[in-house]
C-alpha cells in the first residue's frame, strides 16, 4: 500500500505525527540504504555539506579565540573598586567568557553533526547476572575462606571482635560532644532578666541608634519601635532572644489579652521573635494592630496580648513587663515569664504554668 503514496505530490503527505521523534535521526530505516558503501551502521557525511560546515566551524573557533583574548584583555583593562567599575568589569568579563564558551560549543556541535558520520551502530547487551558456574565458584570460595579464617568455628573470637568494634564505632560520635554545650535552661531566659552592673533594671534602647526611650517621648498612638536591651547592642546571641517590638496604644484600644500591669501608659512590649520558627515578626499594620511575621505569615493581634489570629505559630508573642525608671526611661521590670521564640521539646506549656503561678 505504501507505493500508492507515490502519486501524491511531494510534501503533501505528512508521514509524521507531532511529538514523535524526527525521521532524520541516525536510527532510521531510510538511512540504512547508504550502509553498504562503508562500515555497516556508519553513514558518512555528505562531502559538500562537510566542506561548508568546516568553514562555519573554523569561524566559530576563531570567534572563541577572539572572545577568549577579549576576556584576558578585559581582566587587565577593567578594574574594580566602585560599583560602576565593578559592573563594567562584570559585563566585559562575563560576556566575553560566554561568547567564547558558547561559540566553542556551537563549533563542536556543527562539527559532530555535519562532518562526523551518522551512526546506527548496534551493540549487544548481556544480562547483568553472572553465569551460574561463576556464582557457584564464588560461593564455594567464600565458604572455603570463611572456614579457613576460623571466624565461624571460633565463637570467642567472633564475639570479642564485635565487642571490640562497639566502642571504637562510638568514639567519633563521642568526639562531637564538645561542638556545643548542653542546652540547660538557656532557652528559658533572656538578658532582660539580668540586672545591669549597678543593679538597676535594664533599659530599652532603640535598635540601630542605641538611644534609650523616654516614655513621654513615645507618645503617638500607633507608633512602633524595634527595641533591644541596653548593653547588648552587638551581642547577636542576646538579640536573637531579647529583641522587642514596642507599641503605643490609646488606652481604649487595649484588649483583655494584654497584661495591663506590664504596660506603661499604653506602651506595650512584645518579643519580636516569632513563636513559629524564630524569624523577627517585623511587619505591623497600624489600623488593625496586626503584627505579621514575613517568613511564614503568622499574624498576631498586638492589642490583644499578641494572640495568634492566623498562620502556623501556635502561641502568642510573649509580653515583657515594662515600667519607667527614675529618669523616665523605659526599663524591663523582669524577664519574660515564658520562653521566647520557637517551641522546643522541653518547653512544655509554659503559659499555663505561668498562669498557675500567678493564681
Amino acid at each position, binding site marked *: *500500500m*505504501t507505493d*500508492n503514496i507515490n502519486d*501524491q505530490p511531494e510534501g503533501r*503527505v*505528512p*508521514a*509524521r*505525527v507531532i511529538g*514523535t*521523534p524526527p525521521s532524520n535521526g541516525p*536510527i*532510521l*530505516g531510510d538511512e540504512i540504504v547508504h550502509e553498504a558503501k562503508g562500515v555497516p551502521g556508519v553513514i558518512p557525511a555528505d562531502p559538500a555539506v562537510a566542506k561548508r560546515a568546516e568553514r562555519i566551524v573554523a569561524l566559530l573557533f576563531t570567534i572563541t579565540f577572539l572572545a577568549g583574548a577579549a576576556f584576558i584583555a578585559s581582566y587587565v583593562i577593567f*578594574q574594580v573598586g566602585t*560599583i560602576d567599575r*565593578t559592573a563594567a*568589569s562584570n*559585563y566585559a568579563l*562575563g560576556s566575553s*567568557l*560566554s561568547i567564547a*564558551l558558547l561559540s*566553542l*560549543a*556551537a563549533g*563542536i*556541535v556543527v*562539527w559532530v553533526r555535519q562532518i*562526523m558520520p551518522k551512526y*546506527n*551502530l*548496534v551493540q549487544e*547487551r548481556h544480562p547483568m547476572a553472572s553465569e551460574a558456574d561463576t556464582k557457584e565458584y564464588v560461593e564455594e570460595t567464600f565458604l572455603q575462606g570463611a572456614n579457613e579464617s576460623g571466624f565461624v568455628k571460633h565463637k570467642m573470637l567472633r564475639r570479642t571482635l564485635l565487642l571490640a568494634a562497639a566502642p571504637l564505632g562510638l568514639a567519633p560520635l563521642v568526639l562531637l560532644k564538645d*561542638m556545643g554545650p548542653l*542546652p540547660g535552661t538557656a*532557652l528559658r531566659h533572656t538578658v532582660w532578666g539580668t540586672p545591669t552592673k549597678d543593679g538597676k533594671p535594664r533599659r530599652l534602647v532603640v535598635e540601630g541608634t542605641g538611644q534609650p526611650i523616654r516614655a513621654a517621648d513615645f507618645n503617638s498612638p500607633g507608633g512602633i519601635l524595634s527595641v*533591644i536591651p541596653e548593653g547588648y547592642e552587638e551581642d*547577636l546571641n542576646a*538579640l*536573637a532572644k531579647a*529583641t522587642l517590638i514596642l507599641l503605643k496604644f490609646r488606652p481604649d484600644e487595649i484588649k483583655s489579652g494584654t497584661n495591663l500591669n506590664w504596660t506603661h501608659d499604653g506602651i506595650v512590649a512584645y518579643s519580636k521573635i516569632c513563636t*513559629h*520558627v*524564630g*524569624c*523577627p515578626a*517585623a511587619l505591623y499594620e497600624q489600623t488593625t494592630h496586626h503584627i505579621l511575621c*514575613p517568613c*511564614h*505569615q503568622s*499574624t498576631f493581634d498586638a492589642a490583644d496580648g499578641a494572640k495568634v489570629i*492566623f*498562620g*502556623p505559630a501556635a502561641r502568642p508573642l510573649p509580653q515583657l513587663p515594662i515600667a519607667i525608671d527614675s529618669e523616665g526611661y523605659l526599663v524591663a521590670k523582669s524577664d519574660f515569664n515564658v520562653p521566647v521564640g*520557637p*517551641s*522546643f*521539646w*522541653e518547653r512544655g506549656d509554659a503559659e499555663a504554668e505561668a498562669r498557675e503561678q500567678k493564681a
Partner: protein
Amino acid sequence: MDTTPKAISGVSTFLDDRIGAGSFLKRNMRKIFPDHWSFLLGEIALYSFIILLLTGTFLTFWFKPSMGEVVYSGSYQPLVGVKMSEAYASALNISFDVRGGLLIRQIHHWAALLFIAGMMVHMLRVFFTGAYRKPRELNWLIGVGLLSLALLEGLTGYSLPDDLLSGAGLRITEGVMLGIPVVGTYLTFLLFGGEYPGHDVISRFFTIHILLIPGILLALISAHMVLMWVQKHTQMPGTGRTEKNVVGAPFYPTFMAKAGAFTLFTFGVIALLGTFAQINPIWLFGPYTPADISAGSQPDFYMGFLEGSLRLMPSWEINFLDHTVSLSVLIPALVPLGIVMTGLALYPFIEQWVTGDRREHHTADRPRNNPHRTAIGFTGIAFYGVLWLLGANDEISANFHISLYETTIFGRFAIFLVPALAYFVAYRICIGLQRKDAEVLSHGVESGVIKRLPNGEYIEVHTPAAQDIADHIRGKKEIPIIESGVDGDGIPPKGARTAIGRLRAKASEAYGTDHVPLDEGHGHDEHAAIGAGDHSDGHRDGH
C-alpha cells in the same frame, strides 16, 4: 591518517605496558550511546557540578568563613564603616574588590540552581520512562541520595555569606531543628556551638559545604557514572531496538565530542546568566542580625516547597507532661520532604511488588504506556508544585492583589485536591495518547488528500505511519499482572489469600491492565481508508 602519531602511541604504549589500558579501551572506545533529547537532562546536572567545583574553589581563595566582627572598609561605599562578620565582609570583597569575583560568585549561584533543577528534571525523566527498573534500582537510589545531599549542600552554601537574607534561612533552620522531639535542643546547641547564632555555625557550614558534602557527592556521582557505564544506557523504543541491544553512536569520537560541547554549552549559558541575571545581591541586604528581616524574603527555588509547607500549616501544637511537640513546625518540615524522598526511593520496589516483574528492562517506556505510573508522577509534581507555589504566596498576594490569607486557605485545600486532580487528568491524557497511537497504527495518518468516490462521497485518504514512528509506537510493552485468579479447584494462589495479597492482586490488575491494546488490523477496519488508489472496495461510509 593511517598511522598513530608518535606522541600518542608513545604515551599509550607507556600506559599499556604498565596498566594494561589497551584491553579496557578495546572494550570501551566504541561503546554505544543511544540518543534522545531527554538523556541530556542529567548531563546538565553533571556539568553544573563540575562548574560548581571550579567556581567554588575560586571563591574559597578569598572567602573567610568567620563570624568574627570586623568594620567594613572595602569598595562598596554604602556599607563602609558598618560592623559585620568577616564572612559577609569577605563575600563583599569577592563581589567588589576581586576582578571577576562577582561574575564567579554569580556563576556559582546559578550553577547551583541549575545543578538541582537538572537533577530534578533528570529524575522525572527516569521516573516517567521507567528507567529506574531492574537492573538500575541501585543507580536510582544513588540518585535519590544525590538529590537529598544537593539540597543540603545548597542550604549550607546559601548560609555562608552571612547577609540578612541568608541569616533568615539559617534562623528558620534553627527553629525547625529546635522543634525536633527529644533531641532538638541538643542538636541545635551542638550545631551552633551553643545558643543561636553563636560564632561557629558559618565555619562549620563551610567545612560541610566545601569538603564533606562535595566529597560524598563526588563519590556518589562517580558511582552513578560507573553503574551507567557498566549497565549501558537505556534507549527509547524504535526501529531495530530491542531489550538485548543498544543502538546509537559510539563514545569515540561522537559522544565524547557531543559531551564536551554540551559541557561548554552548559557553562556558556550559566556564564550568560551570571553576567546578566543578577542573583543574590548580598550587598543590598546588609549584615545579618537576628533582630531584622526584609519583607518578601525568599529562599532559593529548591527550598521553596518547604517554605510553602511551613506557610500552609495550621497552628497545631501538643503539650503533654511538660513537653512540647510543635506539629506546626515538624509536619511541614518533615512530612512533604519525607513523602517525596521516601516515595521516590521506594517506588521501583513497590512497582516490582505490584507487577511481580523481575525482568531486566533496557528500553524505556513512553510515559503514556504506563498510565498509572505517569499519573502517580504527576500527583507528586502537583503536590510539590502547590507547596512550591505557596512558598511565594506573599509575592502572589502582592502582585495579583489577592488577600494573603486567602492564598493560604486556598493552599490548605489545594494541597489535597490538586494532586488528586492531577492524577485523574494525567491518567486520562495517557489513555488518550494511547488511543491516538493505536489509531495511527491501525488507521494510518491523515494524508491531507481528499478523494471523491464514484458515489459522490468525499473521504480523506489515510496513509500508513512512517516506519520509525510505527516502530516507536510498537515499542509499547505489556505490564505484567500477578496471578490472582482461582485455579480449577476454586482456590486462589498462595500469595493472594491474605488481605495484603488481595490488595496486591487488585493493585496489580489496575496497574497492569492495558485499556488500549495496539491493533494492527489493516484494511479490514470500517474506519480505515488507507491508500490512495484502492477505492474499489474499502471506502465505505464510516468517517
